[in-house]
């Protein structure tokens, strides 16, 4: 059924940059984008004259709601000096910038443009948490929000079915969280670059200073079971199962394959690119899998001629700990219903056979929704080029990595495979 797709001509990534992801009371979308743009420029090994950029694609979910300002394409293109060149905004909820990446790839593959900047930005933290939650809920499935479901609630419901079907428990979700924090500890760009142990120590110090009862936790799991440390958000999702509210920007420079070496001797090639769309819980064939994931993965694997075994590591959209388990199964890295065991056995750790979310994932790196898709691909870029510093995957011949981005509750999913040759 799946048609084998191919690009009209090859496309390569030759530059990448991102702001730190965090809550910035004194920086707006433009400020963050400039940080990402400057880092991207300095990442192009043989230099880039920004005048050579043909067009900008910008992923942004809902700055309209968060900042009361829409129409961000031209604003961003102007701030980095690209106007009057074309600027196109893409929207796919939390997958908005993966769609910008895709559109940029297609624009080059079609032969129309040679050099394109693909990017994403979101400025979420300037409003109270209740309003941010309301803004994010704009990407919900109407039948679900109508009966009180929130985003953590949808992933909570998915988790109850997953638990009942496969025998997993909250304890297994904690393994995902602990791993994410361990990786983020090694990522200076991460919003929470601390382990759970670091956070426990900070909490204990604070209690001592304030003269409050000092928690006595044996280990990280015991803290995560403690509702004072890790309160319920939407059973079984607790605070430490959920990604934070973040501001941030990210961008990548895409060029036609035949000119890639003019920019760097070490480009990455887009060998698989897939996208799918999905429906609400009530209409989905399964509660523990996203149709959109499987469709996106089939498209990308089909195009690349690869199978899941060929992917050496991946960034996946862990907006909630439960989501990470669904994705690593949907993408075929592990059999359905066994993802939680794989995480428990350490297979997805930085030093494991299939590292997942070496950046710390959305949970710890942060999730400025419109910037996340490109942010994930930047981690793949860093790992494949051996530039990931302390969190560099200790594997010889690392040459194929992938990123999976999800919008809403599976309404939009993308899967992108990059190769270093």
């Amino acid at each position, binding site marked *: 059924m799946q048609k084998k797709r191919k690009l009209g001509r090859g496309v390569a990534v030759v530059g990448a940059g991102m702001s730190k992801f965090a809550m910035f009371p004194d920086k707006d979308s433009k400020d963050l984008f400039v940080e990402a743009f400057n880092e991207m420029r300095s990442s192009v090994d043989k230099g880039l004259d920004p005048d050579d950029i043909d067009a900008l694609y910008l992923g942004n979910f809902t700055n309209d709601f968060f900042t009361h300002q829409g129409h961000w394409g031209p604003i961003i293109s102007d701030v980095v000096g690209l106007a009057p060149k074309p600027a196109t905004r893409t929207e796919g909820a939390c997958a908005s910038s993966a769609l910008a990446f895709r559109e940029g790839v297609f624009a080059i593959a079609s032969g129309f443009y040679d050099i394109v900047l693909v990017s994403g930005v979101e400025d979420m933290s300037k409003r109270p948490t*209740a309003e941010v*939650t*309301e803004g994010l*809920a704009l990407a919900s499935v*109407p*039948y*679900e*929000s*109508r*009966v*009180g*479901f*929130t985003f*953590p*609630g*949808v992933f*909570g*419901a*998915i988790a*109850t*079915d997953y638990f*009942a079907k496969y025998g997993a428990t909250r304890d297994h979700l904690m393994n995902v969280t602990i791993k994410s924090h361990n990786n983020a500890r090694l990522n200076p760009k991460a919003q929470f670059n601390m382990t759970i142990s670091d956070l426990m120590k900070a909490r204990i110090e604070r209690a001592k200073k304030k003269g409050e009862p000092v928690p006595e936790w044996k280990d990280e799991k015991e803290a995560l079971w403690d509702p004072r440390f890790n*309160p*319920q*958000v*939407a*059973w*079984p*999702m607790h605070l430490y199962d959920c990604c934070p509210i973040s501001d941030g920007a990210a961008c990548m420079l895409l060029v036609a394959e035949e000119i890639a070496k003019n920019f760097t001797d070490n480009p990455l090639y887009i060998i698989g690119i897939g996208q799918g769309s999905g429906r*609400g*819980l*009530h*209409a989905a064939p399964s*509660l523990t899998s996203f149709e959109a994931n499987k469709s996106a993965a089939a498209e990308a694997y089909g195009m690349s001629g690869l199978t899941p075994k060929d992917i050496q590591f991946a960034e996946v959209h862990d907006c909630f700990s439960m989501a990470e388990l669904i994705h690593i199964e949907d993408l075929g890295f592990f059999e359905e219903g066994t993802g939680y065991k794989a995480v428990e056995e350490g297979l997805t750790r930085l030093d494991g056979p299939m590292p997942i979310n070496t950046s710390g994932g959305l949970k710890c790196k942060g999730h400025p929704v419109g910037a996340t898709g490109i942010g994930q691909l930047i981690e793949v870029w860093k790992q494949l080029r051996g530039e990931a510093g302390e969190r560099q995957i200790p594997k010889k011949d690392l040459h194929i990595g992938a990123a999976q981005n999800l919008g809403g509750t599976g309404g939009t999913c993308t899967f992108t495979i990059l190769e270093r040759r």
Partner: protein
Amino acid sequence: MEAKPFSDISYEQFLNEDKLMGSRCKKCGALFVPPRSICIKCYGSDMEWVEMKGKGKLAAFTVISIGPPFMMEEGYDRKNPYCSGVVDLEEGARVDARIEGLDTTKPEAIRIGIPLTAQFLHRGEGEKMTTFLAFKPA
């Protein structure tokens, strides 16, 4: 009743009348709750209304401590969380609903698969009436 369009608005209007309604494709028999006007199985567009009996089983659920403003206004909060769920109807379709009548302070004790029966939670009156689909233990 037959003249109503197969839309979300009609679905909500039926809920106001304590009816859980879906649409069935006359060509291939596929059932949709809430209703669809186009059959996504065979692309047929000749549909008929079918009333659900309101019996089902809990397929998945969550207990929400931090809800949207309209749920907070109903008095739900961290101390009084509410349950939302997915219900497998006897007729084969699946619906999202509020789940009432369970002890939400002990979510770990709530079991998937428990039998449920529909109830209709009315808010407001007359023209302004809205109704939430809910289920409670049968």
